[in-house]
């Protein structure tokens, strides 16, 4: 049996590290805090790997079905005998998979940051924040309770805010962190309302009870389906609102605008939070509630699918035009998360129909590896070039051979070239789309082709294109990144090659049962050929310095500009918030506050002041004046007495 004590250590180690580094490390051992954080994460990763091994191969399976195991449960707030907020640890295939991913990627980023953040004045603070984030993310994926997930959901939001705004001297970083926080807060409002709707109708906050009550026939299900609002049932509304929260965290349309700006944070943070772990929290949330989506409310699942494919295609188009390499990667992340979302959206629940769910989780797994690698590689390049712009790079393959090879492997993985990781997961997703919805399938193949194109545009622009112009002497001693940065790159590159061979359909499925996936050569060959063609196109356009890209951009002038400006979403949102909401709601509200509420209070104050001013001259400080008042008062009382009684 699993021992709950050491499972609890997995999230507890990072929070303890956070407290130690945050309270003492910054003052007493700033240089050592990186090593401390890394060691603590190493222990957490080993424990997670051990738990995963035990779960998948020893205790998780009962009669061939992976069980949901509550390894620990502590009642935190008891509202009534049936409703309580618990803090606990839930182990099931997706949460076990997530803790391995989170601790692993976090460990890689910790190691990498020792080189990347070397010499940073707030080095210890950085590691404290990283530990806080890791704790929050682990708490999120292990939640047994929909309210617990909400608490940790906000905690990852805060850590993300702190880390995006890490370089707080830069106004753009401050703006980006605020934007990320506010946009996700809007989405989280939906999430909270969704939680309240679902828990009101099901009478519980616990995931297992919630899923059980809302998927089996009974009074709970019939109640929530029969009560409707604006033409949709309460169940649909609840699930859509929860999905809105997920869309905010996962940067799905229309909440996607924060992710590209979030790249203002340190690059390893982008790799950890905004590529591999936190942004897939939305996918994880939908996967967690997947039984309800799939069995009780297919309509909401269709919304997930269409939002996913739309975001995916949109992001892929924008990614083709961006010139900041981190922004290209950010849009690529958004596009790949869109893949995971619509894979869930088109998936069924039982047996082989659940291939979309499996593919989505598989893609989450492989994507977190190769996207972290891409970001860390980009970080190494930025570390060397001191710029995020493509035009400052080019020809780096000879100067940074290891970074070059690892980056190439990651690009091949994300483009879906066999036998790299992305090929297998993307193939499962495309298969799921083919089986359920041909429109989404078409768009997905197109997006996959675009992915290959923009990734190799990025690759050729960084490592080939023109010769790198060295400026001055600093390049002589500073070629390849230091060892602490190369080690994670090499490990991740190795995993990007082999991760696709993990038999996910045996381990992580919607209903816990294993199924066999067949490999259809005829089906796989189309997308692979398309990706290869896209790579050759990118090679043709970007491998040598040429005027071709500019000509292409000119011939699709308006479309190119629109895509380059991210289809004006930021401008539209700014227009809506600044012009419409501020003018129609904000200013009248401010006027009422200033003139009516404040005016009432000011009136009371000025009346009091006037009365006080007029009576204060009685307090002359002269004894004889007081004596006159005293005698006059006594006389008055005497006269009153005489008048009343005599």
């Amino acid at each position: 049996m699993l021992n709950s004590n050491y499972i609890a250590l997995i999230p507890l180690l990072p929070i303890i590290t956070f407290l130690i580094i945050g309270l003492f490390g910054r003052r007493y051992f700033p240089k050592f805090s990186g090593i401390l954080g890394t060691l603590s994460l190493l222990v957490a990763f080993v424990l997670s790997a051990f738990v995963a091994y035990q779960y998948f191969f020893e205790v998780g399976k009962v009669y061939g079905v992976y069980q949901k195991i509550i390894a620990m449960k502590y009642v935190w707030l008891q509202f009534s005998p049936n409703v309580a907020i618990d803090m606990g640890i839930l182990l099931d295939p997706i949460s076990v998979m997530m803790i391995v991913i989170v601790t692993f990627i976090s460990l890689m980023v910790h190691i990498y940051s020792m080189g990347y953040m070397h010499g940073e004045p707030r080095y210890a603070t950085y590691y404290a924040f990283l530990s806080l984030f890791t704790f929050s993310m682990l708490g999120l994926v292990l939640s047994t309770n929909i309210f617990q997930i909400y608490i940790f959901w906000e905690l990852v939001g805060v850590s993300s805010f702190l880390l995006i705004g890490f370089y707080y001297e830069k106004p753009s970083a401050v703006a980006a962190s605020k934007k990320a926080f506010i946009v996700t807060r809007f989405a989280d409002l939906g999430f909270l309302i969704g939680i309240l709707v679902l828990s009101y109708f099901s009478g519980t906050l616990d995931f297992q009870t919630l899923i059980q009550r809302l998927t089996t026939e009974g009074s709970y299900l019939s109640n929530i389906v029969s009560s409707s609002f604006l033409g949709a049932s309460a169940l649909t509304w609840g699930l859509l609102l929860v999905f809105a929260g997920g869309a905010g965290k996962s940067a799905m349309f229309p909440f996607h605008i924060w992710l590209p700006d979030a790249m203002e944070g340190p690059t390893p943070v982008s790799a950890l939070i905004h590529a591999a772990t936190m942004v897939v929290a939305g996918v994880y949330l939908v996967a967690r509630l997947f039984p309800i989506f799939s069995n009780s409310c297919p309509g909401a699942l269709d919304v997930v699918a269409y939002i996913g494919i739309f975001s995916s295609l949109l992001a892929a188009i924008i990614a083709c035009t961006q010139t900041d390499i981190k922004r290209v990667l950010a849009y690529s992340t958004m596009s790949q998360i869109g893949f995971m979302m619509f894979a869930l959206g088109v998936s069924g629940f039982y047996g082989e129909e659940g291939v979309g769910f499996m593919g989505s989780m598989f893609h989450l797994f492989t994507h977190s590896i190769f996207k972290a690698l891409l970001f860390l590689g980009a970080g190494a390049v930025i570390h060397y070039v001191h710029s995020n712009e493509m035009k400052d790079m080019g020809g780096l393959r000879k100067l940074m051979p290891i970074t070059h090879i690892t980056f190439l492997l990651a690009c091949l993985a994300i483009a879906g070239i066999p036998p790299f990781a992305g090929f297998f997961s993307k193939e499962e997703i495309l298969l799921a789309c083919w089986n359920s919805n041909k429109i989404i399938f078409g768009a997905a193949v197109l997006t996959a082709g675009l992915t290959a194109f923009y990734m190799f545009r990025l690759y050729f622009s960084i490592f080939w294109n023109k010769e790198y112009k060295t400026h001055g002497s600093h390049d002589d001693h500073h070629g390849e990144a230091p060892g602490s940065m190369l080690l994670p790159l090499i490990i991740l590159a190795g995993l990007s090659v082999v991760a696709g061979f993990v038999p996910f359909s045996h381990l992580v499925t919607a209903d816990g049962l294993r199924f066999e996936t067949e490999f259809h050569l005829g089906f796989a060959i189309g997308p692979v050929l398309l990706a290869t063609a896209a790579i050759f196109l990118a090679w043709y356009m970007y491998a040598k310095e040429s005027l071709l890209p500019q000509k292409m951009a000119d011939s699709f002038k308006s479309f190119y500009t629109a895509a380059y400006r991210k289809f004006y979403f930021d401008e539209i949102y700014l227009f809506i918030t600044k012009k419409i909401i501020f003018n129609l709601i904000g200013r009248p509200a401010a006027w009422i506050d200033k003139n009516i509420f404040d005016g009432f209070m000011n009136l009371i104050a000025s009346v009091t002041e006037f009365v006080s001013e007029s009576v204060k001259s009685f307090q002359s400080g002269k004894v004889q004046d007081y004596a006159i008042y005293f005698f006059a008062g006594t006389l008055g009382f005497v006269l009153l007495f005489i008048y009343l009684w005599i």
Partner: protein
Amino acid sequence: MNEIGLTHILFISTALFFIGVYGFLTRKNLITMLMAIELILNSVNINFIAFNKYLYADKLDGLFFTIFIITIAAAEAAVAIAIIIHLYRSLKSIDVDDADIMKF
């Protein structure tokens, strides 16, 4: 001539009382004001004695009160003079209008 009655004595004490009040309200010298207070107290003493003699001749309560008030007046004069001396030390004046710092 009629015998001197209660009314005559009450006239005296009332006159004495208002002379004292007038003096207290108009004099600016603190010592003089203290003297005016003594006048007021003495008018009260006269009242006590007079009522005791004319209304309750067989009792001594009025006398006792009078002696009591004389004692209190002596103590009060001691305290008042101490205050006045301190005022003089800090203000270099015993004019009552100068002691007006305790206001709003």
